[in-house]
């Protein structure tokens, strides 16, 4: 274990082509359970998650993990908003992270089949991943992220465009992972999902952290008018 939490962002800013996408963000996450990032489209959820994972460049400011940043990133996994499917079979996709880390082929593939069953893809082992349906791709991406037992898993809208059943399947897997000690940071548009999964809520608005709160408090009594409106489903600008 790397003990990467707490992580502290100080004046963390992402600028591209003269525009500020996110920041400056000052925030400390102590990794107590699941952190859910919400906010309107374009508010910077994806960018914030990427910054934390080191998949987007910080323009100014700092992000300090409790351990070495490189080590922290290595103990993390990321499920992208549009999952990346390697042009290989489902089984090979699942085995890939293990093979990269030098695990022998047989062991890696045994684990891959095990995980395929856990994420409900046991019947599709030999199907090329790129032809999977959107929901199946999300499940595959999730299994591929969890297979190397990350300490922290980022999920960028893991259930966008999924039906109720697939969403429940994925939430079950996430809850199991959480029970095993995996920390989760996820973004979502689904307030029901946010309520079900969140321990902490980060509410983003126009690239800035507008409100951070304990989940129960946030959903029961949001502090700001914008958060109230967002929770009601009103348009927030």
């Amino acid at each position: 274990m790397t003990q990467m939490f707490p992580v502290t962002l100080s004046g963390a800013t992402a600028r591209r082509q003269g525009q500020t996408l996110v920041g400056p963000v000052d925030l400390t996450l102590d990794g107590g359970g699941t952190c859910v990032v919400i906010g309107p489209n374009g508010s910077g959820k994806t960018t914030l998650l990427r910054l934390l994972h080191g998949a987007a460049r910080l323009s100014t400011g700092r992000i300090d993990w409790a351990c070495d940043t490189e080590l922290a990133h290595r103990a993390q996994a990321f499920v992208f908003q549009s999952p990346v499917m390697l042009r290989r079979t489902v089984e090979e996709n699942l085995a890939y992270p293990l093979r990269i880390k030098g695990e022998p082929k047989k062991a890696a593939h045994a684990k891959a089949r095990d995980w395929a069953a856990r994420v409900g893809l046991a019947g599709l082992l030999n199907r090329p991943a790129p032809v999977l349906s959107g929901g199946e791709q999300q499940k595959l991406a999730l299994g591929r992220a969890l297979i190397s037992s990350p300490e922290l898993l980022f999920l960028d809208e893991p259930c966008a465009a999924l039906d109720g059943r697939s969403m429940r399947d994925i939430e079950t897997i996430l809850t199991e992972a959480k029970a095993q000690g995996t920390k989760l940071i996820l973004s979502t548009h689904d307030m029901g999902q946010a309520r079900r999964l969140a321990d902490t809520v980060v509410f983003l608005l126009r690239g800035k952290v507008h409100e951070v709160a304990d989940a129960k408090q946030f959903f029961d009594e949001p502090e700001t008018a914008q958060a109230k409106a967002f929770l009601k489903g009103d348009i927030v600008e």
Partner: protein
Amino acid sequence: MGDLWSGLTQAFWLVVTLDSELVEIALRSLQVTLGALVVASAIAMPMAAFLAVKRFRFRRPVIALLNALMGLPPVVVGLVVYVVLSRSGPLGALGLLFTPTAMVIAQVIIIVPLIASIAHQSIRDLWQEYHDLLISMNVSQRQKMQTLIWDARRALLTAALAGFGRAIGEVGAIMIVGGNIDHATRVLTTAIALETGKGDFALALALGFVLIGLAITVNLGIHWLGRTEREGRW
């Protein structure tokens, strides 16, 4: 007209009776070209992958140069290889001039830029697709290249095919460095040039048919290889 007709019938018989001289020349063509293809692919594919994943200062100029080198006139390549391999040249001591090896070297130089350029395009596209995931997984540079080459293998087959097509039909460079020596360095293209010059259209035509046949067969063969490997669409 009569010339053409009698040439065609004679050519036909040369082919169907597997004329020994014809077979020898055809096999040498295949040997030289496939040899060059293997060597060129072994150089061009990793080069293409490297250019796709590695950011370095002269990356763009190198890619531009590679594209420009696709248009390299084979005759000039032949001339340069000739000078380098000739007895007084820097590698003259190897005694490679007028051997099939010299022809392979010339062909490799001609097709590496072609294969690398085509391969680079498809690997670059795949890299865009894979980038976030592989970075997130902290994949090493070498593993990136391996993954991309393996997963782009169908497109790379097409790149190799283009290289094969260019090499098997090439005549200028291998004429110069091979010398078109009977039973040693004579291949289909150089033989066609020679027989046409001598006025032996029958043999020239027969050689031409075999050349076309070979090119088509190898193309189909490689396509079939790529097809059967897995029926999935990517």
